[in-house]
């Protein structure tokens, strides 16, 4: 039992670190949830891809470096530690690509993966429907067989990235509801700019259009964009990469970086005597380390030929609650500043002077306002974090740990954690039934 990495792995880590140090933008990119920001993040994917850093764990033929899970985790630690931008291609890379590796054809992989790796085609996920959140068996949108392909109709919702993405993937009902209600679903990739597709953005809690509703009215999709056998979509979606999904949905690098920022915030602004807050900062450090080591243990098991299965539900419950607790601690540490978005309020206020003029407390102002001032007025300070994105907080050397807007945005984002990718209620049911062997009950 050890935590030692091979010389090659150590060298890989240092190569990643060096590349990131040279390439990560010095100022945060504009928000991923704006057209401009989406384009900037897409360009960043291209920059990553140019040196084969966008999908390091993929085979070289698709643009990767062919490294294994352990090296990917090391890359992720470096990526977040460097404060690099959010990954606009996350949906495609972490959800669609593993499915193609397991169930796609060679033709599909060759056609879909390279442009995904370069950020040329950005993918949205389209799992949910208005009446089907946790309960995928009640999906209603349909795929109707026609000559040479399928016609899609119905409504998807909470489709992350769909406001600006190129294509999407999801499940469609292609047959009657069978005895087992998950049967009769087909896994389809479809264009978001085709005739019959209407996109209506949905603002998340802070108003940013991180999701969209997608209306499909007889949208044609050729047979080549169906993954696996028609009617087999649910099994394909569920089985894909289960072995690694629990370890890769949220990499520990993200939380290690967040905990590190919190520790710096604590050391910079915390009252050393305030043990109530200190204990929460400590829990952030402890939790990030636990998550890292839990992941190393899982990766070791996979390396040794094992699988994870229902343990990814433990993982989901842990990181989603952890993420909220860390951000709550940061907001409490920031005090009154922990309410700010970093933006100016929209309307000019009567009796209000211009920026910074006459500020009686320049020092406090400097601390509190750094984020907003560094990023200009308006909404630009927002770091892109789609509800299923894995983006870093854009907290490089200049962002600093004390920028309240990054913490308040991270807080809003963290609140989605226990809801998506299977609510924590469902995850706890799974833990109890599959790991503890408790009887199913009717819940």
């Amino acid at each position, binding site marked *: 039992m050890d935590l030692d990495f091979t010389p090659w792995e150590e060298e890989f880590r240092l190569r990643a670190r060096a590349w990131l140090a040279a390439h990560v933008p010095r100022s945060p990119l504009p928000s991923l949830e704006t057209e401009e920001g989406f384009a900037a993040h897409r360009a960043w994917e291209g920059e990553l891809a140019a040196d084969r850093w966008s999908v390091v764990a993929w085979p070289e033929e698709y643009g990767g470096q062919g490294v294994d899970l352990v090296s990917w985790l090391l890359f992720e630690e470096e990526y977040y530690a460097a404060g690099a931008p959010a990954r606009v291609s996350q949906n495609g890379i972490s959800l669609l690509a593993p499915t193609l590796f397991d169930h796609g054809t060679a033709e599909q992989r060759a056609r879909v993966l390279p442009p995904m790796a370069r950020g040329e085609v950005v993918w949205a996920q389209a799992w949910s429907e208005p009446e089907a959140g946790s309960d995928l068996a009640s999906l209603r949108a349909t795929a109707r067989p026609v000559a040479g392909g399928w016609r899609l109709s119905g409504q998807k919702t909470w489709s992350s990235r769909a406001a600006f993405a190129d294509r999407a993937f999801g499940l469609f009902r292609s047959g009657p509801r069978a005895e087992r209600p998950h049967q009769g679903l087909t896994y389809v990739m479809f264009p978001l700019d085709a005739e019959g597709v209407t996109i209506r953005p949905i603002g998340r809690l802070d108003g940013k259009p991180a999701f969209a509703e997608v209306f499909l009215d007889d949208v044609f999709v050729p047979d080549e964009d169906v993954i696996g056998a028609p009617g087999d979509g649910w099994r394909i979606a569920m089985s894909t990469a289960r072995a690694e999904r629990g370890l890769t949905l949220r990499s520990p690098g993200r939380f290690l970086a967040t905990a590190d920022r919190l520790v710096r915030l604590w050391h910079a602004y915390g009252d050393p005597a*305030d043990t109530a807050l200190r204990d929460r900062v400590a829990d952030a450090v402890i939790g990030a380390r636990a998550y890292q080591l839990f992941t190393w243990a899982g990766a070791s098991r996979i390396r040794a030929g094992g699988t994870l299965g229902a343990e990814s539900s433990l993982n989901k419950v842990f990181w989603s609650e952890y993420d909220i607790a860390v951000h709550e601690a940061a907001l*409490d540490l920031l005090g009154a500043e922990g309410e700010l978005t970093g933006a100016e309020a929209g309307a000019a206020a009567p009796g209000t002077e211009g920026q910074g003029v006459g500020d009686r407390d320049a020092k406090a102002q400097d601390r509190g306002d750094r984020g907003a001032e560094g990023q200009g007025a308006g909404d630009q300070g927002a770091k892109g974090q789609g509800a299923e994105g894995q983006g870093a907080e854009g907290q490089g050397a200049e962002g600093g740990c004390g920028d309240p807007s990054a913490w308040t945005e991270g807080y809003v984002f963290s609140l989605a954690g226990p809801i998506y990718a299977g609510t924590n209620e469902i995850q706890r049911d799974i833990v109890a039934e599959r790991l503890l062997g408790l009887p199913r009950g009717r819940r």
Partner: protein
Amino acid sequence: MRFLLDDERRAFARSLDGLLTAADTPAVARAWAAGDHAPGAAVWRRLADTGVFTLVAGEEYEGVGPLPVDVAVAFVELGRHAVPGPLVETAAAAALLTRLAERGVTAPAKRLLPSLVAGETRATLALPGTGPYVLDADAASLVLAVEAGQVRLAPGTVRVRASRDPPRRLAKPLPGGEVLASGPAVAGAARWALRWAALATAAQCLGVGAALLDRTVAYVKQRTQFGVPVGSFQAVKHRLADVLVGLEFARPLVFGAAVTLHEEGWGDVAAAKVAAAEAAYRSARAALQLHGAIGYSSAYDLSLWLLKARALRGAWGSVSHWRGLSLPPAPTGSRRPVSPGHPG
């Protein structure tokens, strides 16, 4: 001992509830967030008609106060309807001016209180020790700053900044401006204003928490997953039961603090502030989780209460700050140097 709202106060609450329901306060809050204060001002006028702004100041200044229980009743409803604006601040400003007058500094009260009491003036203020920002200065005609033993009429604020709760805007008062009062009366008046601010905020939290619970209960009754109402799952039921426990034990603290507001000591008002803030926040967390994705959408009105619960939790000082105030002070000479469990 009759620790129950009487019929008159219940009727007052009902009339506010009716008025605010009719006013479509979610739309008002969204307009306020977008910088359009006109609908909010209209609500403000209707609130003035019910006498909400007369409850702090006494008869000398056209008020009917001090009536802290009525203030608590009103702010529960204001929270329940997510009414935007410097409501707590206007009440606290009235308390500040009233107490200054009671301590002999009558000029500011004579000049400013009547229009506050009439609902014609919106005020905002910053008090010592509870953070540098004033709320909604862009919608207030009176910005009071209390510090260093002075009450100032601030000449404006440093730029106005956005809160994560969109209808709230925060700004630091500019230095300078007219000194309205100074001297020994100021500190006591500031403390008196803070008591009212904390009480009103606690009541507002209670209303926010109750609205979140009500909406969530309604939602989980009608939303089905796996063929049954979400509200029939035991985990959902227990989480909402715990929310109700939190709110129902915060409620008597809020009204208890109102009854004893005039007494010495911070205990009751601090307890109310802590318990109501925590209960509202717990309600918000449960509401978001049990609504699922729809609750996370800014277009859905739930977001108005969700974000407000977080913002109010820290308004007028952190919960930890108020926990400290809730403790009775140490009797002198009682403290020993170390804990018995540590090597002496």
